[in-house]
């Protein structure tokens, strides 16, 4: 079970969180003309990365904040966690 540092609550066990997928995916702006391909990429296409991955988790049974977690998908190592609006260098 992973141990995730919520930027608001501190170290918590994985079972307090729910997974939200790739954090680098950006929803296209509303009312913007976009191609089918662009939309499909947003809705369906995800990279199945091996290695460092920035992903979303929601601290569901805690502060309910969506946070960003930088995790290695192969080793499960967590390098850092960020608030949703935090700049990631």
């Amino acid at each position: 079970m992973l141990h995730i540092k919520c930027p608001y609550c501190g170290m918590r066990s994985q079972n307090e969180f729910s997974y939200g997928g790739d954090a680098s995916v950006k929803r296209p702006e509303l009312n913007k003309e976009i191609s089918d391909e662009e939309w499909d990429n947003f809705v369906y296409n995800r990279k199945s990365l091996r290695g460092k991955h920035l992903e979303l988790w929601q601290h569901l049974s805690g502060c309910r904040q969506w946070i960003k977690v930088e995790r290695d998908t192969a080793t499960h190592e967590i390098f850092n966690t960020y608030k949703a609006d935090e700049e990631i260098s």
Partner: protein
Amino acid sequence: MTQKFRLENGGLINRDKKLSFKFNGKTYYGYEGDTLASALIANGVHLVGRSFKYHRPRGFFGAGVDEPYAIVQLYRNNETEPNIKATEQELFEGLEAKSVNCWPSVNFDIGAINNFLKIFLPAGFYYKTFMWPKSFWYRVYEPFIRKAAGLGVASTKHDKERYEHKYEYCDLLIAGSGPSGLASAYAAAKNGARVILAEDKPRFGGSLLTSDVNIGNQSGEDWANGIISELKEMPNVVVKNRSQVFGYYDHNMLVMSEKVSDHLPKTKKHHPKQRLWYIRAKEVLISSGSIERPLVFGNNDTPGVMLSSAAKEYLKVYGVLVGKNPLVFTNNDSGYETAIEFKKNGINPIILDSRVNPQSEIIDEAINLGIKIKFSYVVVAAHGYKKVSSADIAKISNDKKQLGTIENIKCDCICVSGFWTPTIHLASQSGNKTKFKEEIDAFVPGTSKQNETTLGAANGIFTLEETLKSSFTAGQDLSKKITNKDNKISFPNVVEKISSQHDKFWCVPLPKGKNYKRFLDFQNDVAVSDIEIALKEGYRSIEHVKRYTTLGMATDQGKTSNLNGLQLVSDIENKVVPAVGHTTFRPPYTPISIGTIVGREVGKHSKPTRKSPMHSWHEKNNAVFVDAGVWLRPRYYKQGNENLFEASKREAKNVRTNVGVCDVTTLGKIDIKGPDAAELLNRVYTNAWLKLPVGKARYGVMLREDGIIMDDGTTTRISENHYHMTTTTAQAANVLSHLEYYLQLVWPELNVNVVSTTEQWAGAAIAGPKSRKLLEKLFPNNDVSNEGLPFMGYTESELFGVKARIFRISFSGELAYEVNVESDNGQFMWEKIIELGQEFQVQPYGTEALSTLRIEMGHVAGSELDGRTISYDTSLEGLISKKKDFIGKRSLNREAFTSSDRQKIVGVVPLDKKTSIPEGSHLVKDAQAPLPNKKLGHISASCWSVEHDNPFSLAILKDGKNMIGEKLFVMSPLKNKVIPVEIVSSHYVDPKGERVRS
């Protein structure tokens, strides 16, 4: 009955407390502190079971967790449990156990015929034999295998024992209380670290209990006891015996099973039977020791052949002789320790040492004691059926290929020692890539993957002094990092005997003309010949060899067999062991009971139960409840002898003719506040929300980004910047997360807050033509006329002094209202509705009537919004705004979503107007068509229409728009039904929707 193999003195058992127990129906006696195994051996019982494949007699091989044979069915306190190792089960008064895997009895076993048919049961025999003909599997093979094999029977009764889960955090978790565990725990504890020390056996000390060493002028056992008593006194230390750390997971999360009550005849009141610990440790010290390796020779599975370390443990811990005429067969010095223990207790063992001319302190000691030793000698084969009675022995050439003249000598046990295998399971589970250590011919942990450190024998260190030194240091250094304290501990003086080099030799060649079975895996009956066949047939990867032969796949996970299997493969393949590699170690290290894994989450506790504030009223009024997610909702209110069908029909009919009241508290409710609340709703729902006036409700449908409907419900504008959203019961939590996702991540610029208020409000739907009249009674000061409170109107009021919200919304299709009050007032509201509704024939109605009402109205619910349908499919496309963008809109022009024959909701009526249509049935054009019959659609919901008094269903049907009036067939292979039906409009009642507006 006397314990003929019990020594007069010695051992750590309590001789003052004699215990009686039964094995296979016969009564025996043992002592407190015995295991079932030691007590049986004390009574001369060596035949405990039958092997899995050939049903050969099985005795005891080890003295602990590594035991492959002695698995019994245990009876305790009117319950039974399978798969119990006799070597681990502590004796208690009245214990009963039976052999498993033998039918009809352990002494006469029909399956033993397999032993004579073994030529037909080679490697892969399951795959080869039981594969064809297919029809034989259910009729012949499976029943036979089930009867003749298996490792016991699970109880079919409800387990009344309690199992607990516990979450714990610590600085250092130390798995194993041998010398390395004790030393590291002591050093870390002295530095103020929070320590958990776990020992799977009842006694602490590990190898110190059986080895002849001296630490700080005390015996190993005394030193261990001293350390343990000191640790137990320290507030920062938790010391746990009977506790096996069996799993190492991510981020230093370890799982431990504590057997709290298994050693007692009966679990004490308020105590659990077992406890599962989830431990998050900053550092993990693996001090799990090592397991002795067997030597492989003919018939080496005969009862009486056992590990020499086990024989020594039975002697020193339990005061029990495994035999009175022992043969010790060894390739290293460990066998000598066992032989010396025998000798000290007046028994004359013979040592066969495969080595040519080894020299060490302990060998000298054995010689001085007058023990007979034969160097360059091996056991070729054991003889005896139910217990060893003699052994064929021979001299072996220096290259270990040629056997000399075979002689037969009498013996009643053969104690084998093939050197030691470090127990690296936990390190390996942690992700540590283990490495092969040539000097000890075994794998040891490599570079740490997580914060784990392996100590002592588990790390391939077999001298006490080095073990203690490195363990004190590890405990000190790791704790210092955490506590910043540095209490130095003086290192005790250690006296031990230094061993000579072991012999790289494990498998005795077969003598000419003999075909003895030489077993590698004792639990799964895998012999040397099976591995040879597998390799001959082309299997190379050790993982494949393992699966094909089942080597190491039994419940002991190959604790005693893995390395010998690897040695054999590498010998045949002319590879070195590290090139062959070992198979993966996976948790659990040893079998864990299902009860422990489940913990308290059984029966009613398997999930939380949510009840509405009106629950007790429902109970008192004969409600029959149904699970709705974790909620309990009244399904119907039983009157007299009514069944579900009759009651729900009556309730639904009463709504259509008079007035009914339904508990709708379970609907999800989300409070939405902020200046941008309308904008959020506008983006979330498919229809327009910016112009909804205060005091009005609106129905909305929300989509996922892929265009599929996520949920529906009404949202009401309470005030300028305040909305009250309702969701379906099932989707309440998901919708809240969905809104939070968009607000926090996608549109953080929106100034809106959302919070669940599902539990803050109790809700009652009041529906039926007389509902307005009832409302007038409930709220005499409010104008609830069609003008004062029109359809989709909202007002706030007081219900006899209680704050209330009144929504004029309808799910039943009738004139209806929904009243919400604060949860604490729910019961009051409900009772008022029932009381004042009497004159209008009010009746409560449950979810079944609610379903009937919505189905015949063609209102969609979860069974239509099933995660596969879009707005068009459910005839909700009229609510899709063309003017604005919203979540999922861009997906709606997908080709499949816009195709001209897209599926759509329809109504379905059986032609005979009598036959009920099973939900989930398929709609087909031709009931006689050959299979697979093309499916045109499926029945999503069925009811008995109270308006038309005949069955009615909703279906999602291909090209549903153009199918009205068509005749099709409903097919339900599950219910074996074929029903001719007519497709009608989904709006079966009041298609113009006049009633809700009346």
